[in-house]
């Protein structure tokens, strides 16, 4: 809603110093004067909505087109639905989304296993290229992982 109030125009001096050439974003933005019309412009017809879409609560309607890449599912989807109850201004929006992303990665592995495929993590991480072009770094990384691993194992066995 655009509140119309013409009274300000009676304020002495109103508008005297308007400088239409002082457009700080010129020439990036081609100023048309239409900005004040807000969202009142001709739109294309709406893309039909036949998937679950999460909408920013900072806008009243869905955008005319939208992506249908991956609708929310599972636990990560539940967290994402919660996140979208809060605006982009809130940590309550972004932090849950980042959490959901981490959980989603595990859901992906579980889904793979359910389908009977074991994800080839070395291949997915492109370790072949790392080994070919950075063998020293790769070996150092592996050594660190091995050391930490063996320390953890030793610690666990000591406890028993």
């Amino acid at each position, binding site marked *: 809603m655009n509140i119309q109030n013409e009274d300000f125009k009676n304020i002495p001096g109103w508008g005297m110093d308007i400088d239409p050439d002082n457009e700080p*974003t010129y*020439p*990036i933005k*081609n*100023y*048309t004067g*239409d*900005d004040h*019309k*807000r*969202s009142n*412009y*001709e*739109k*294309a*017809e709406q*893309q039909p909505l036949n998937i679950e*879409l*999460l*909408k*920013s609560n*900072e*806008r009243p309607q*869905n*955008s*005319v*087109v*939208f*992506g*249908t*890449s*991956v609708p929310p599912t599972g636990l*990560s989807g539940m967290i*994402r639905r919660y996140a*979208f109850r809060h605006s*982009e201004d809130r*940590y309550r*929006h*972004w932090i849950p*989304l*980042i959490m*959901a*992303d*981490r959980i*989603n*990665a*595990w859901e*992906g*592995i579980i889904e793979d296993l359910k389908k009977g495929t074991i*994800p*080839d*993590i070395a*291949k*997915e*991480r*492109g370790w072949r*290229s*790392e080994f070919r*072009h*950075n063998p020293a770094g790769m070996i150092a990384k592996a050594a660190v992982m091995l050391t930490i691993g063996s320390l953890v194992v030793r610690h666990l066995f000591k406890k028993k």
Partner: protein
Amino acid sequence: MLAMNYRGPYRVRTVQRPMPEILHPEDAIVRVTRTCICGSDLHLYHGMVPDTRVGSTFGHEFTGIIEEVGPLVTNVKVGDHVLVPFNIACGKCNFCKQGLYGNCHESNTMATAVGGIFGYSHTAGGFDGGQAEYVRVPYANIGPTVIPPDMDPDDAVLLTDVVPTGYQAAEMGGIKEGDTVVVFGAGPIGIMAARCAWFFGASRVIIIDHIDYRLEFAKNYAKCEAYNFKSMKDPVVFLKKITDWYGADVCIDCVGCEAEGNLLQTFTGKVTLMQAGAATALQWAINSVKKGGIVSVVGVYGPPFNYVPIGNILNKGITLRANQASVKRLLPRLIEHVQSGRLDPKGLITHRIPLEEIAEGYRIFSSKLDECIKTVIIPSTKP
């Protein structure tokens, strides 16, 4: 069809996915001929962009052949070889009408700060990207641009993002004749920004990075001065010193949230995630520009919060300009630059990788292996 598929941080693979379909009368389906891995894809690959869902396909830089069009598509036809700008723009909203195609209001339901971008998480609209054999292109009357017949397709694919983003970074700097311009980051965008700074009349262009092979490349490609900040005690003091203790006229941040070089930024931004990545480059840009200077930002900073020296923006009277590039607005001029030979985008390409091997492509670029600057992915679909 074959498509790149995100599985979680640092994990991608190629899988068979269903063919994309026309979902809106202004859609087109494009058979991808070339696509790239962009520096900003790495933010997704590293898991730093919120709402990057497992199963999505990345890729916002691509060219391809129009395979199918919706009933309202009139500007392109089946068989056209097009380059597709990374922004999805309706052409009708007030932002599009003002040339702000990177700020379209009708292409992203999931967020209002950023417009729709192909393959760039659900924060940018949840569209599948071009690192695939086929891709759905909404608003096909606005974005896709027929590649001029005399243009090398390798040049064309870089006109979808790298060239316009680098060019707009320089443009937003408001560079005047004789200005000294400092570019932070010698990735493909930084190199292009440095190259384009000359178009606006700079008399001195300096690029700063921490990887020697990238600096060497930048020096040759952009004909600029190149310095490694790892060899400096203090980059801001260094930049002041080489600009008569005055500061640069224009500083351009082409790094974004994964910057190196500042312990406190790294700790708060990358180790503890107390802020969305390290804003080192932006901090250096603000602190090494002259008083009354201009800082132009095209580096990607994720939500929700960054520690930037905002007080200094006031104290120094800085004009800070930042945006996603409005590719469509810039294309006519940039096509001229390429056709006349003034600009050689394909000169940035160092690697060519088949779509099946995309995981290696991401690893090589992410770990800065094999002197990689820019990777082109070629889907092997038969014509």
